[in-house]
């Protein structure tokens, strides 16, 4: 079942009509080295003039912006976990137990804690449902293969909001227009890296050519696995996944759900051709019905 709305695409920009486009650019967010400083959140807002919309303390660890949204284009999640205690005298790498393991433990002795931090962002999907459903053309694919929304064209219909399988794109409360990460389209065109990647002190956010990043991520994963980090995995790097792989992908230390990410995202427009077929059939049936009713009335 392969169509232009699903499956691997070797060159998204070319498919979108660019001739000889530059290499596809993306983010590799290696959450294993994220220190949760939130410099990415702040740098993003500074550069893109995103308004603050903070509320009161959430009580959710050190996360007070909650989730990605119209006014949070980078979002750092903080996940506190209890994990089984390490062998204290084992000088090897910390052997983290089963992912997400929750052990009720006696204080201070029998359990360790782990604090996962991860900077989430728009995935810049190979098959971007948001873009596919956008009726105004406000959302478009750039020559770098990224997905950008133009705020002066968006009419606030909100179709994309329900289409995005990750819950990324979001409307502003005032006029309903949608906003999300642009992968700093106005910077990368000038050869600069996006603001978040520039600000990240530990290179948790890496920007570059997607192919290069994917290779680097594979190597990093192998390294972590060799160090005993059993829960380490890549997320979004697979062109065969439900969205054709993402332009912004992640190295996670636990199940995606732990980070609030959908485990198996599928582009919501995957079945669009069939849907249209069925819709056409249904519409046809309606027309028949309508005509019949007219006929009926006349009769």
């Amino acid at each position, binding site marked *: 079942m392969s169509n232009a709305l699903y499956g691997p695409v070797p060159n998204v920009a070319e498919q979108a009509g660019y001739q000889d486009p530059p290499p596809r650019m993306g983010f590799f967010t290696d959450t294993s080295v994220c*220190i949760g400083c939130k410099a990415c959140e702040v740098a993003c807002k500074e550069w893109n003039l995103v308004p603050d919309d903070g509320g009161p303390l959430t*009580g959710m660890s050190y996360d007070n912006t909650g989730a990605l949204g119209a006014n949070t284009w980078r979002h750092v999640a903080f996940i506190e976990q209890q994990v089984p205690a390490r062998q204290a005298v084992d000088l090897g790498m910390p052997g983290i137990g089963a992912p997400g393991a929750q052990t009720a433990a006696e204080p201070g002795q029998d359990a360790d804690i782990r604090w996962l931090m991860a900077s989430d962002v728009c995935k810049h999907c190979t098959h971007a449902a948001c873009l596919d459903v956008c009726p105004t053309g406000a959302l478009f694919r750039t020559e770098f293969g990224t997905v950008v929304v133009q705020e002066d064209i968006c009419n606030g219909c909100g179709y994309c909001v329900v289409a995005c399988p990750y819950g990324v794109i979001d409307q502003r409360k005032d006029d309903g227009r949608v906003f999300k990460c642009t992968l700093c389209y106005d910077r990368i065109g000038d050869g600069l890296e996006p603001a978040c990647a520039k600000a990240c002190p530990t290179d948790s956010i890496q920007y570059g050519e997607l192919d290069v990043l994917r290779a680097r991520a594979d190597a990093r994963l192998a390294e972590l696995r060799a160090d005993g980090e059993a829960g380490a995995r890549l997320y979004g790097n697979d062109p065969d996944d439900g969205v054709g792989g993402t332009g912004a992908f992640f190295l996670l230390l636990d199940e995606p759900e732990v980070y609030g990410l959908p485990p198996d995202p599928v582009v919501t427009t995957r079945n669009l051709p069939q849907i249209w077929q069925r819709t056409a059939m249904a519409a046809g049936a309606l027309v028949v019905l309508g005509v019949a009713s007219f006929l009926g009335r006349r009769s």
Partner: protein
Amino acid sequence: MAECHPVGFQWVMEAKARGAKIVHVDPRFTRTSAMADVHVPIRAGSDIAFLGALVNHILTRALDFREYVVAYTNAAAIVTEDFQDTEELDGLFSGFDPESNSYSAHTWRYEGAEAAAAAGQRDPSQTGAEEMAAAGKAAREGGQPETAGSGGPSVPGKPERDETLQHPRCVYQILKRHFARYTPEMVEQVCGISREQFAEVADILTTNSGRERTAAFCYAVGWTQHSVGVQNIRTAAILQQLLGNMGRPGGGIMALRGHASIQGSTDIPTLYNLLPGYIPMPHAHQHQDLESFVAADAGTTGYWGNMAAYTVSLLKSYWGDAASADNDFCFDYLPRLTGDHSTYPTVLAQLEGTCKGYFVVGENPAVGSANGKMQRLGMANLEWLVVRDFTMIESATFWKDGPEIETGELRTEDIGTEVFFLPAASHVEKDGSFTNTQRMLQWHYKAVEPPGDCQSELKFYHELGKRIRAKLAGSNDERDRPVLDLTWDYPEHGPDREPSAEAVLREINGTGPDGAALSSYTALADDGSTACGCWIYCGVFADELNQAARRKPGREQSWVAPEWGWAWPSNRRILYNRASADPDGRPWSERKAYVWWDADAGTWTGHDVPDFVADRPPDYVPPDGARGPDAIGGQDAFIMQSDGKAWLYAPIGLADGPLPTHYEPPESILENPLYGTQHSPARGRIVHPANPLNPDQSEVYPYVFTSYRLTEHHTAGGMTRTLPYLSELQPEMFCEVSPRLAAERGLVNGGWATIVTNRTAIEARVLVTERVRTLRVGDRKVEQVGLPYHWGVNGITVGDSSNDLVHVTLDPNSHIQGKVGTCDIRPGRRPTGPALLEYVEGYRRRAGIASEA
């Protein structure tokens, strides 16, 4: 470190990527802990017990780097038989005077350096220095450690040594006896750290030290904020000496300062008792002339022996042509100390009415200093107050919206303080330098003009000086000469006539007889032919170039990167790097090669600027009676120390003992398990009705609290609580408690809590988190309450200040406040208005310490 210095932490992450083990010791589990291989939760205020046990672990197993220890530390030095240790005196050292709560260091001295009691005293000013001088008795030989700068205070002559380390009175054996009771079992009893975890840390530390490997300690200034703050760091220094981790790449002790250029603010000091380059401020009664001022050091060995040259050059830079040999180079013009004028005694003086005016610059004492109430009451009792800051900080508005206005303790109409608020330029709005913890100066250029009336410090003080001088012009009064004779002719540029920051840097660097910029402090003379604003910075403008502005990328130069910025002294990146080579001058190992002796060339060489006399061979033995740098032997790696050795044991210079000793914090839930002496006997007590202490082991205040910072906010919040993007990231004051404490007191995550001490009560939102561990300390469970200290009444995000809970008790060496106390915590918000006072008083009554009516 990740929490407070996320940008610097990238290097820790880099080290980790190369296989370094990261151990994080902290009462709370922070962003640093999240990245560490091992997090060790510790009871706040028990650091010396933990570190002391590591010392003991090394000594009992003979895991010290023996060759290094014998050659480069004072382990072999023999101490007089008058010395008595805490082992003999149940927690006291010999020389303690219970009347003045202070030590005489006389008995701590080296054998063979008998004159120690009379000298080694660059600055006798401690609390009560005046009485001391008047009484004519040297009650406190221990000068202030910070006046010793990059070296220790001087000892005359060199001590007797036993290089076998067997002599019962040699430092090594004293150390062994002193730390013998610091066992892993004791760590469990005192710190709440399990024996297994202790063993793990001890293994990591010792296996990563030696010829092939080095380990570094990084601490944030929270470690210094204890009544034993200096001794906390001293214990780390003892470990690093025993393990051979000083003066070598990858070793050292890194103080992560609280602000961007705090290192710079001690080098070119904002401290009351220092002149630039750690030259002490002269004392009114002791230092009548230049000769007596430099005398204590002029006779000593090592680089402090050239103090006269540094001081005369400083005087020449201040007073130019007016300073000549005939008038003692205007030494008389320098202000004099008459006692302890550090922050907290100054606040007491405000409360007493003797301090009438106050400059608050880049600081927010109403929120950022311990016992905020004392600070605000002090400022409310001034005649005038000048606040220079970016935003309307609480220290500028306490008179109308401070907590005491709410409770009725102060009434706006009764406060006579005239408050001047002057807006300040930020670092991007002016040229200047930052000096970081590596002593490296990095220049920054103005990016934008300061908005409105905002001014740089440079502009402000230059202008203030010009106006004062204009007012005094033509005066014949002798006392106006120091101001009128100042060299104050800085070039100005731009529409706002901004003084040139580079011209100031050049003046700091110093000039020679020909007026050209000097390239090294070794060129400074004591005859008035050179001028230098800060001798340790000499060379920062070598070749008439701003060396601090160099930005050659790391990939274009050696791994030491000497062409990035400039580090004092003489662009050295690692101090005491002679110790990176063995006594014969060969690298300890290829892996850790850094600086070594090139016998053919007859010179020290290597990756860094050698921190040694360039052509002094390793086998050089100074002749008897040698002075100054001539007295540095070929193996005296610690050249700023007058005996050339790193000090495991401090025979002089500390106010609270020659060796670190665990005492309970001034407010504690425990009886000291180690000694009969409960608290540091020499701690600085601040006695005032606004500064009462909770009784020890009180059931009314059963929990430990400590304060700290968050990544999202900066210190007292003036720079961050006013910014929307940072405020939304940490929008409210909160406290952190363990699930067990939450259950015990009925605290709900996201709800409110009131935290109570004898000083006051504050409210905060609650985070219930496993990151705050319940500690098993001996057979009891200890709960700690974590409190960020960023909040105050102004800004976008507002909240109670945790510093209002903190009592003022000082480290006797550095006069810094502590940050550990005891408290109670209850669910719900605190009472407001006068009811708050009654609430706190109720606690006092229950604790049996009710205030007098």
